[in-house]
């Protein structure tokens, strides 16, 4: 049971969960972003265990390489070491958020993990080539729509930046 594959898997799961905890609990936004990066790495490791190496590398390329850097740029522009002032943090908010998250945890736990989902028939035949073929064959329309969405968001972000520059 304690073979290298299992040990690395347990390590990946721990990295993911600890990263998520650090993200939501830490004091300043920079440590939250570092926790997010750790979580993304853990999830990339889990994708490798799920026979999806392409997706694991895409996760690192897109999330860590682009989105995390983008968030870090925004943090640098919007005040990096901004800690929550003491008088604005009430214990009521902590209790409320704990209640919300724990209630949703138990509800979804009951819903999702007590059901036996059944084994799928068929051999696992998804390679990178399959994903590429599916993207251009069956899912070409959502693919094009998402690229349109990305173009729209680029234009929107540039317009917003020009807007603020025009005010000055």
């Amino acid at each position, binding site marked *: 049971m304690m073979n290298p594959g299992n040990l690395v898997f347990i390590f990946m799961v721990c990295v993911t969960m600890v990263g998520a905890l650090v993200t939501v609990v830490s004091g300043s936004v920079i440590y939250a972003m570092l926790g997010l990066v750790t979580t993304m790495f853990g999830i990339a490791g889990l994708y490798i265990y799920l026979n999806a190496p*392409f997706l694991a590398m*895409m996760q690192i390329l897109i999330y*860590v*390489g682009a989105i995390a*850097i983008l968030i870090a*740029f925004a943090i640098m522009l919007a005040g990096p070491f901004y800690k929550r002032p003491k008088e604005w943090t009430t214990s009521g908010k902590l209790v409320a958020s704990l209640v919300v998250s724990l209630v949703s945890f138990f509800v979804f736990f009951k819903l999702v993990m007590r059901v036996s989902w059944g084994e799928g028939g068929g051999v696992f035949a998804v390679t990178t080539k399959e994903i590429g073929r599916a993207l251009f064959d069956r899912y070409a329309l959502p693919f094009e729509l998402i690229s349109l969405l990305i173009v729209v968001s680029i234009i929107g972000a540039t317009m917003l930046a020009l807007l603020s520059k025009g005010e000055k």
Partner: protein
Amino acid sequence: MTETIVNNIADVIGWETIRTVVGLVGVLVVVVVNALVLTWAERKVSAHMQRRIGPKEVGPFGLLQPIADTVKLLAKELLTPQNVEKPLYYLAPVIVFIPVLVSFVVIPFDARLQVKDINVGVLVILAFSSLSVLSILLAGLGSNNKYSLIGSVRSIAQNIAYEIPLLLSLLSVVLMANSLSLRDIVEAQKGVWYVFSQPIAFLIFFIASVAETNRTPFDLPEAESELVAGFHTEYSGMRFALFFLAEYTNVFIVCAMTTTFFLGGYQGPILPGIIWFFAKTYLLVFVILWFRWTFPRVRFDQLLNFSWKLLIPLSFLNLIVTGGLLKL
């Protein structure tokens, strides 16, 4: 006698693990030896290009100079400035090594000398080269210093601008080789090397990777006359040595990748493959060292304009033409 010991160990942890461990140790040896060689070579090459001689006191031809430099850097006091954010400050020199070491895992040094031939090898290299940006970020943020912050912002902007032509030029090679694994790409160059069938992609890839490693002419973020020293202003002694070690290893990785993707990897007529591989790689390293004393430094807006306005449209055009010609 050693055979029985090795067989016993293999029964416990399996042959794959032994092979991986041996491969990783080999990679570390290559990294250290390469760093020593490059430190010496940089000083000698730049000296001869400036019509002087360079280090000649320590050992024959100054060959033991890197060892003297290492001893000096190790003996320096590990000074931590007072108001730095300690976790970020300590983490940055460590993270700067991870992309380099991971890229070493997929490079084929010879037909059977590759630590692990991952079937999405190209993506591994691209994904982890975008990770080196994170360490620049942590170094800049953690140093609590205006010059570090500006230097790191500039360096990040340069890095993400030149990542895109890198990716696109590699995609044309992947289209031609029909596979994402590095071994297949080298094997697909048996007939004609890709430098002849994709010259534009070769140029774009080489220029973009020189910009990625922050070497001259793209070394504005760490230029001595500009921003004190950019994002590693506050690092001294051993930590500074780690940043520079990572930069030299990055130069080696970049040249190794250019060799693998465009110059046929380990293929060559008479000598064993690994000698051809190192010969081609160090030829490209020499070219990168040559650039430093040939070209003036590019201004920052010229740098970004060059990437966004010239390299990216050119690499898109190259990709479209490659795809079109392959399907006809």
